[in-house]
């Protein structure tokens, strides 16, 4: 087989890995949409805020230090300790749970029974607030995120596959971080499925997702479920923030990863966890293979963004609810 063939396989594998990264972002959207019918515009910002908080705890940064210094003329920056990654993740998770509780308390409970567009608008407001709040709390500089997951091409895979395609083939390149992300995403999905299928809270969550009114009538607290769902989405955002933040550093453009989730959601459906995964994989592989086979050699490159949305649009035409989404039939 010529080297070009194996490079095609390499692009395919990297497409799968990229798809997993997109799915991680899309999962957070799906969880909240499924449980409350809200398209959470703030999901990208949540990933950013979670990652900022994690790095802040790790580095022992004093929250709001810039604000405190400006008001009191102090020169506070850091506590002087470094928190181990595991505890920093736990602490960031606690903050995301508090965040979920506050969102329910301050926003959602006042908007019960409002139109979905109103709830969507509320999440836009939340996104902008969180962006400013995160800036105020942790500062705006780029932060290095390191929780011990190695990065870079995997030597072992590279060396043990280099013989395949002759002298022009350098072995398969797979980023170790992406391999970790794949296992973490798989574990996350399995945990979410077990939680929703085999726990009382999970069943309540599914009941709310199926029918708010019916769930309320059997005594399920809608408000408690919303807090739980937003907390889980916060946890998913933390995982996405860690994976994406490790690649680019934690900075405010991290919130733009939401852009990569939209075609995945359009393709996989807004209400399906497997849809988010499969959709991510299709988009990841599709855009990378298109760029490799057609985009770069024939169209000058940079086709990935529009190709992802084009695939999603084609799916919308033939299957508006997405691959795994629920078909909504409203009878008059």
């Amino acid at each position, binding site marked *: 087989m010529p080297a070009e063939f194996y*490079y095609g396989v390499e692009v395919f594998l990297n497409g799968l890995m990229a798809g997993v*990264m997109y799915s991680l972002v899309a999962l957070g959207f799906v969880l909240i949409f499924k449980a409350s019918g809200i398209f959470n515009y703030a999901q990208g910002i949540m990933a950013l805020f979670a990652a900022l908080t994690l790095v802040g705890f790790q580095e022992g940064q004093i929250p709001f230090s810039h604000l405190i210094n400006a008001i009191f003329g102090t020169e506070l920056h850091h506590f002087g300790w470094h928190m181990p990654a595991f505890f920093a993740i736990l602490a960031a998770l606690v903050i995301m749970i508090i965040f979920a509780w506050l969102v329910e308390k301050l926003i959602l409970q006042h908007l019960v029974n409002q139109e979905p567009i109103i709830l969507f608008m509320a999440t836009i407001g939340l996104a902008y607030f969180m962006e400013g709040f995160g800036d105020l709390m942790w500062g705006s500089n780029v932060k290095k995120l390191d929780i011990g997951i190695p990065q870079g091409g995997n030597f072992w895979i590279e060396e043990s596959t280099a013989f395949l395609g002759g002298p022009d083939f350098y072995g398969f390149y797979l980023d170790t971080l992406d391999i970790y992300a794949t296992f973490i995403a798989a574990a996350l999905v399995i945990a979410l499925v077990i939680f929703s299928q085999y726990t009382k809270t999970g069943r309540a969550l599914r009941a709310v997702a199926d029918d708010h009114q019916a769930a309320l009538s059997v005594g399920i607290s809608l408000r408690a479920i919303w807090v739980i769902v937003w907390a889980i989405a916060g946890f998913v955002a933390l995982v996405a923030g860690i994976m994406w933040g490790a690649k*680019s*550093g934690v900075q405010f453009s991290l919130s733009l990863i939401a852009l990569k989730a939209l075609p995945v959601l359009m393709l996989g459906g807004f209400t399906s966890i497997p849809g988010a995964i499969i959709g991510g994989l299709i988009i990841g592989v599709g855009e990378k293979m298109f760029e490799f086979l057609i985009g770069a050699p024939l169209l000058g490159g940079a086709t*990935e963004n529009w190709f992802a949305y084009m695939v999603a649009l084609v799916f919308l035409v033939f299957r508006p609810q997405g691959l795994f989404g629920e078909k909504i039939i409203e009878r008059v």
Partner: protein
Amino acid sequence: MKLRNALIAAFTGVCVATPVLADLVFPALTYRTGAYAVSGIPQADGYSDYFTMLNERDGGIGGEPIKVVECETQYNTEKGVECYEKTKGLGALVYQPMSTGITYQLIPKASADGIPIHSMGYGRTSAANGKVFPYVFNYPANYWNGASAVVNHILELNGGNIKGKKIALVYHNSGYGKEPIRTLEELSAKHGFDLTLLPVDHPGQEQKSQWLQIRRERPDYVTMWGWGVMNQVAIQEAANIRYPMENFIGIWWSGSENDVIPAGDAADGYKALALHAPGMDFPLFDDMKKHVYDKGMAAGAGDQIGTILYNRGMFQAILAAEAVKVAQKMSGKADITAAEMRVGMENLKVDQAMFSNLGLPNFAPNLSVSCDNHGGAGLVAVQQWDAKAKTWSLVSDFKPTDMDVINKLITEDSSAYAKENNITPKCL
């Protein structure tokens, strides 16, 4: 109700319409929020802090106080234009749009309004032709100088012969990122190297395809025209595929601390072009400390002092202040107008004696602006990142670029612009 409405109208009128009289007004189109805030904040801080220092130390310029009017653009072109419209009536002397997109939109507007634009190291490259763009200045160097500086550096490393070498350009797929292509193509024909173009779509968080292609094709050198998160991801991806960092050279907008810190030790040896020296090892910073930082008057959080982009913002302010001095001298008055500022900018000359007087010895190369040449001498240096010390250091002098190629392109592009817009090239 009528009284309340009247009060609101009066208050709004005072806030919006009152011109700032008898001040030297410098609107700053900054971006302290949004996806590019990381790069916008240090530049805005440096720009503002230098003027604060002049106010505190010297009482302004020529005895005239300075007023910096910040307007938040979020690096968004529409918001940038809104900011321009909102601030131009305040007596604006010069605009620093801090964005190539905003600069392109403001060129016809500011030219019609008679307010000069200084797009330092960005914006429309052919604006260096002052006969076609009398109100636009892009000194001390432009993107085409940058492209030539990269090639010159590679020529130096290869004993002057790069025939058959492969150079890849990884660029932001926007007007900004595409700016060097034409020059690199000309230089490719002149020196015989192969050029590969690798565009990256905004914002640049996902670049796997581009770096897999680089890994497959193994170019000898990679150069980058990136901005924001694109820079950090590209440097990380280069490290991931174990691309030799000393062969990776970014434009001056891809060479700040923000760009290399996320990649950690792996970024060691990465190079970028430089318009000025890095660091705080200059006597000027003693004055900045005494008159600004110690008084708690530093802009923003005061945590960007001495970074590459802070120094760049400061350099922009320095060149603006020096142009004001020229304008004041030429007009014989302290409270100059935008038209007089334009004349000051067109007659600006900065040499090493002047830099030493400012407390910035060897900070940047000499500069001489004229009607023919709004782009300066195009002298560019190369800096390199030391990951262990977390510092940038210049690894070359400020050297000339291939003006034969660049001037030809500037003439072609500016002539086409003049023809499209019915402009008769002339000195004002």
